[in-house]
Every structure is written in structure tokens, then in C-alpha cells.
């Protein structure tokens, strides 16, 4: 029998994959596993070193964020590497008008340097209202009252998300979508459209353990609850339409080292982007 060799596992994806890699490294015995993380769209200047890591890995845990064939380092993955996928968690229902769901605010984006990540959560409806109602107070009032022509009903967005999450469960064979749909009204399961709480990421980690046939205890949710540093307030109208119990107008949300409310957040957006 040859010398014992640790299994090298690479995690590839977004910030969720990074949190999962750290939690995996904490939970799995270091004598058995070596892990690393790389962002899916790895920066050009880091591709050589990332490619060297990828070339050494036995198992590649790919977040289901884009097609594997679109992975910039696809050619660096050895044929012998086992490729497993895990879900990318996102949930549009509480934030139906956010740019991440496709309703783009191009003028606001043009004001920011993307490399600075000044505001990562743009609002497509506020972008449209900017053209219709140049006066900031009138725009705030229309948005608050949900008085915007052709504004999509949050219930329709939630119906879309329900279908998508049911399909996600079928595809991955476990009930993460069901957990989201059953619990989002009672608990703040997401901090933004693509920042899930620790308990959801803990379920993903269990899924990864199972995929690797590892019998390890579930990681405490607190160990994976890293993404709440940025939180986007839920529109009170959306909260009411979807019966989201924890998101009322007085709710305070963390925003870096500060706290904000829905009104403060929207007024700051209007002030910043004109």
C-alpha cells in the first residue's frame, strides 16, 4: 500500500462557494482533505495560479452558476477529476424589482465603477421611475405606494420562483427549494436575492458531504452565516403581498457597519443615482 495521500477538493463558484469551502475545511479532517476555492470568473491575472490548483484536484465541487463549458479554466481540469455540482441559491420573491432578476437600471450602473462594487443591488423599477418622475420626493412616493405602470405583481414573481425551486429540488434530489418556500415568510432565509443565511448553506454542505459519501455531522448554521453583512430591505408592499412576517417598514437591516430601513435605503438610492 502506498503512502497516504490527502484528497484535494476544489470549490468553484461565487461567495456562497467560498463560505462552503471554509466550512468544509473546518468540518472535514485536515489529515484526509486539502481544499481550495476559486471564483468562477477568475480574474485574468490569477488564471495561471488557479489553473495550477485545478490541475491538482481530485474532486471539483462546481456551483451550478453557469455551464461548466463556460468555465474559463475548463481546459485545466484533468480528465481524471471527478466533477460534482451543488446548487446556487438565489430567491427573487422578496426583491422582485432588483437588477439581479433582470430588470436593469443602466443609468445607475453607469455611475459606478464596477471594480469598486459600490452598490451591487440596483433597482430596475426605481430606474424606470427616474425617467417618469424626475422629482425625487414624487418618485419615492410612487414607489412606496407601488403606483408604477406595468410594475409586475410580486405574486407572479413568486409563482416563477416556486416553479424554479421545485425544479431545482428535482434536479439535485434534495429539498432545499421546499425549505425555502416553506420558511421564507417566517424567517429571514436570504439577506439579498443571492445571499442565503447559514442554515440554508448548512443544508448545501450536508448535500456536499453526501455527494462525497462522507459521514460528517451537519455544520452549525452560525459557522456558515457570513453573508448577512450586506442586507437589502424588502419593500413593505412586497412583504404584505407575500405575507412575509419579518419584513415590515420598521425592520432594520444591516448594511456594512451600519443599519438601515427600507425608507432610508430607497431615499439613499434616489439621492445617489439622481
Amino acid at each position: 500500500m502506498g503512502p497516504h495521500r490527502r484528497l484535494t477538493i476544489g470549490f468553484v463558484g461565487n461567495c456562497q462557494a467560498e463560505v462552503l469551502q471554509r466550512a468544509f475545511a473546518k468540518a472535514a479532517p485536515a489529515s484526509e482533505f486539502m481544499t481550495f476555492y476559486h471564483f468562477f470568473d477568475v480574474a485574468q491575472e490569477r488564471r495561471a495560479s488557479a489553473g495550477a490548483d485545478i490541475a491538482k484536484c481530485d474532486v471539483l465541487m462546481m456551483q451550478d452558476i453557469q455551464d461548466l463549458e463556460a468555465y474559463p479554466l475548463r481546459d485545466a481540469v484533468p480528465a481524471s477529476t471527478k466533477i460534482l455540482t451543488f446548487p446556487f441559491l438565489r430567491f427573487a420573491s422578496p426583491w422582485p424589482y432588483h437588477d439581479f432578476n433582470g430588470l436593469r437600471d443602466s443609468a445607475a450602473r453607469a455611475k459606478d465603477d464596477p471594480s469598486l462594487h459600490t452598490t451591487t443591488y440596483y433597482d430596475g423599477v426605481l430606474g424606470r421611475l427616474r425617467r417618469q418622475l424626475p422629482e425625487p420626493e414624487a418618485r419615492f412616493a410612487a414607489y412606496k405606494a407601488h403606483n408604477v405602470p406595468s410594475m409586475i405583481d410580486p405574486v407572479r414573481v413568486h409563482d416563477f420562483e416556486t416553479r424554479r425551486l421545485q425544479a431545482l429540488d428535482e434536479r439535485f434530489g434534495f429539498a432545499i427549494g421546499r425549505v425555502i418556500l416553506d420558511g421564507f415568510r417566517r424567517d429571514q432565509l436570504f439577506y439579498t436575492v443571492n445571499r442565503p443565511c447559514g442554515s440554508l448553506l448548512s443544508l448545501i454542505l450536508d448535500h456536499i458531504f453526501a455527494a462525497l459519501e462522507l459521514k460528517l455531522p451537519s455544520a452549525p448554521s452560525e459557522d456558515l452565516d457570513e453573508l448577512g453583512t450586506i442586507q437589502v430591505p424588502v419593500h413593505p408592499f412586497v412583504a404584505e403581498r407575500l405575507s412575509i412576517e419579518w419584513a415590515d417598514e420598521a425592520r432594520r437591516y444591516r448594511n456594512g457597519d451600519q443599519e438601515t430601513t427600507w425608507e432610508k435605503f430607497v431615499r439613499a438610492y434616489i439621492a445617489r443615482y439622481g
Partner: protein
Amino acid sequence: MTQAEILAILTDLFREILDNPLIELKPTDTDSDIPGFDSAKKVHLVLSVEDRFGIQLRSREIDGLRSVADWMHLIRVRSGAAA
């Protein structure tokens, strides 16, 4: 409805949702050819297509959309529009 008419409506919807009047869709365009588009960011586009064409798309069909030609084909099949 002809393929050209579907493409014209689809172009208008992409322009509106992506807030970019300069978008000119071609059937051969894939997600990465369309400025500001991303396969994960389809919610509003799908809902607008459903409204405009009076159809409902299934999640698996949505996941399979890779190009403008795929959108056109799915719309035609779902709406029963003539080619």
C-alpha cells in the same frame, strides 16, 4: 405570427427589461452576446414573454434556453404560432 415578428417582439422586450434601446437581437446570439444579460437573470424576461405571448413556460424549458433561436422556437411551440 412569423419568426420575424417573434424576433421583433422579443427584441423590444429585451430592450425594455435590460434598459438598453441599442440591443439588436439575432437568432444566433447566445446569452453572452447580449449586453447585460445573464442566464441567472431571466425572471422579468420570462414573465414579460409569458404576458406578451399568452403562454406559460416550464422551468426545464427556461433552463434550456441558450440562444435567441431557442427563445423563438419555444415561443413558437408554446403559442402554436405559424412558422
